[in-house]
């Protein structure tokens, strides 16, 4: 039998992974990878750091050249080769060689679509002006860095407050450029819940980044080069604009082949990475997957998922009976913004409610190391669960400390179907330089269970903000702390003096207890309950996690 021919279209993460894995499974496959780009197997997620100079040279970004790849795997990668059409009947792909314009036919027995995703570019006036960029490919990063290093960029506008936008904003800021971020949604980090996202937003604002939310970019103005960005609220001067309003899956070629497109608008594949057409697989950012919690189709264009998909496809293409599978993902992500780290897994509270879950959540600050071990940092955990089944639905962790460990613990727990009770009893590594004796994840589970069992009633920051006029806010911190920063309209009684002074308060009025992180407020809660207060609640996360107006 002749060696089977495999054609892979796309050569960043998923395409090269599929090819390399298949070759390792069975060296007899005759594999060719084509890409319309010049660079292969590059670190797309590293591009913002190249602009900032954290990554010094281009070669550090490009994991492998086609020559390296050939040498290691024996697979040919043809760059600047664009697949333009597919003849399904005869299993032939028409490929245009971009350098010469020549069109060639590539026959295949098996085909892999790994065409990735492209930045969404809104059709607004001025989008074609010089120094208006998207950031997706190596070429984009090279051009942006060149502009930055020309010394002509004093002010930049980043449109979109997602990961790439925020990371790029940080890197431009570190180059002494005045940076404004314009976000259409009410807060940056659209996948996160409001309190956590606003925490990040406040942090970046304090660093000196100008963040404008609920604001729409209408047009970009300039003569040749960009000069200003016009929004529905103002005009912002800009020598550089980064459009980072999201990406869309590249499915044009798949459509020509008649491949089914899913509800997420990415290519529909089963757990084995097979499309609806025999011998055609799809992997990476162009393909959808399943949300492990809801069981619904989901599209998470992430390098971590792309690599897993590639491995699955490689294994199954060699032996379809092996049926290796990717059951789905949780949408686990993490981002660094200056000194702040933010991570998320599973459903946000907002998404969980949208999916119809009866949601219960808590916000619990803690430390990433023992509080007496020098160098510890605060991290805030938001834990989200189903009120009826107690199953963990999601979490968000933010702070200057280590956040990827707790989020990975929770991601693992959710994958294995954990309930809050399971999380609470996990045996986690402990020594003072690594964790609190009761790790933040465990404490968050403790608080959530207290809430589920009715041992404590809490109010979230967003709920409190909306009813500040209706409740008594009782700050039980010491006088000095209260003086520095407090919730507008609060009463201050130090927790140690509560038993003497609380009798003066109205026991029937809804009272919200506030302290630094929530612990003293909980102790005060028990005290007030004992004293006969009817309607007492603890502000989740205390002042540490309250992202709204203080005085």
């Amino acid at each position, binding site marked *: 039998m002749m060696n089977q021919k495999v054609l892979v279209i796309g050569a960043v993460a998923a395409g090269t992974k599929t090819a390399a894995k298949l070759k390792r499974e069975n060296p007899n496959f005759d594999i060719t990878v084509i890409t319309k780009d010049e660079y292969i197997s590059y670190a797309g997620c590293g591009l913002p750091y190249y602009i900032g100079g954290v990554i010094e040279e281009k070669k550090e970004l490009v994991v492998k050249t086609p020559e390296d790849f050939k040498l290691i795997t024996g697979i040919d990668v043809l760059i600047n080769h664009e697949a333009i059409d597919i003849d399904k009947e005869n299993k032939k792909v028409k490929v245009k060689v971009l350098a010469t314009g020549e069109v060639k036919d590539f026959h295949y027995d098996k085909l892999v679509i790994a065409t990735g995703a492209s930045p969404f570019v809104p059709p607004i006036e001025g989008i074609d002006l010089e120094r208006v960029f998207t950031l997706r490919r190596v070429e984009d990063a090279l051009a942006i860095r060149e502009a930055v290093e020309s010394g002509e960029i004093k002010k930049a506008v980043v449109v979109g407050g997602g990961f790439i936008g925020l990371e790029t904003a940080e890197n431009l800021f570190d180059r002494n450029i005045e940076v404004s971020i314009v976000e259409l949604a009410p807060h940056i980090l659209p996948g996160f819940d409001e309190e956590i996202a606003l925490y990040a937003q406040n942090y970046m604002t304090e660093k000196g980044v100008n963040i404008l939310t609920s604001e729409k970019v209408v047009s970009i103005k300039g003569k040749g080069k960009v000069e200003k960005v016009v929004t529905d609220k103002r005009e912002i001067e800009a020598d550089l604009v980064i459009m980072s309003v999201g990406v869309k899956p590249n499915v044009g070629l798949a459509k020509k082949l008649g491949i089914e497109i899913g509800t997420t608008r990415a290519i529909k594949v089963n757990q084995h990475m097979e499309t609806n057409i025999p011998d055609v697989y799809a992997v990476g950012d162009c393909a959808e997957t399943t949300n492990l919690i809801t069981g619904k189709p989901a599209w998470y264009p992430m390098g971590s998922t792309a690599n897993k998909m590639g491995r699955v496809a490689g294994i199954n293409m060699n032996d379809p009976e092996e049926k290796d599978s990717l059951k789905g993902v949780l949408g686990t992500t993490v981002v660094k913004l200056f000194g702040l780290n933010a991570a998320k897994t599973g459903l946000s509270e907002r998404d969980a409610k949208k999916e119809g879950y009866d949601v219960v959540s808590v916000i619990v600050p803690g430390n990433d190391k023992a*509080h*007496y071990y*020098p*160098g*510890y*940092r*605060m991290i805030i955990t938001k834990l989200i669960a189903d009120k009826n089944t107690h199953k963990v639905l999601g979490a968000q962790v933010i702070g*200057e400390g280590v956040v990827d460990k707790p989020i990975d613990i929770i991601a693992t727990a959710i994958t294995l179907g954990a309930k809050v009770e399971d999380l609470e009893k996990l045996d986690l590594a402990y020594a003072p330089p690594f964790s609190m004796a009761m790790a933040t994840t465990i404490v968050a589970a403790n608080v959530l269970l207290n809430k589920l069992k009715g041992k404590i009633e809490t109010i979230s920051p967003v709920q409190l903000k909306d009813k500040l006029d209706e409740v008594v806010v009782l700050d039980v*911190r*010491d*006088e*000095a*702390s209260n*003086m*520095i*920063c407090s919730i507008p309209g609060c009463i201050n009684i130090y927790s140690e003096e509560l038993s003497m002074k609380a009798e003066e308060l109205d026991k029937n009025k809804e009272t919200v207890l506030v*302290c*630094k*992180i929530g*612990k*003293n407020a909980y102790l005060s809660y028990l005290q007030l309950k004992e004293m006969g207060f009817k309607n007492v609640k603890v502000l989740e996360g205390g002042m*540490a996690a309250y992202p709204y107006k203080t005085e």
Partner: protein
Amino acid sequence: MAEINLNCKGLQCPGPIMQVFKTAKEAKSGDVINVKVTDRGFAKDIQAWCKKTGNELLELNEGETEISAKIKVK
């Protein structure tokens, strides 16, 4: 004029700011408080507190593992 050394390392809640507040209350005008702290929120807190109370922040060092401040009592 006295120099008062205050070790507030490991203190979180109630935080070191309360110790500084108490110490300043008992100190004489012109006394200097040297405080060492591990709670990260302290840097912001002490600046705000000095501004509001009129005590003078002579020094603030934010190290990787420790924050130290020198405050002249009003």
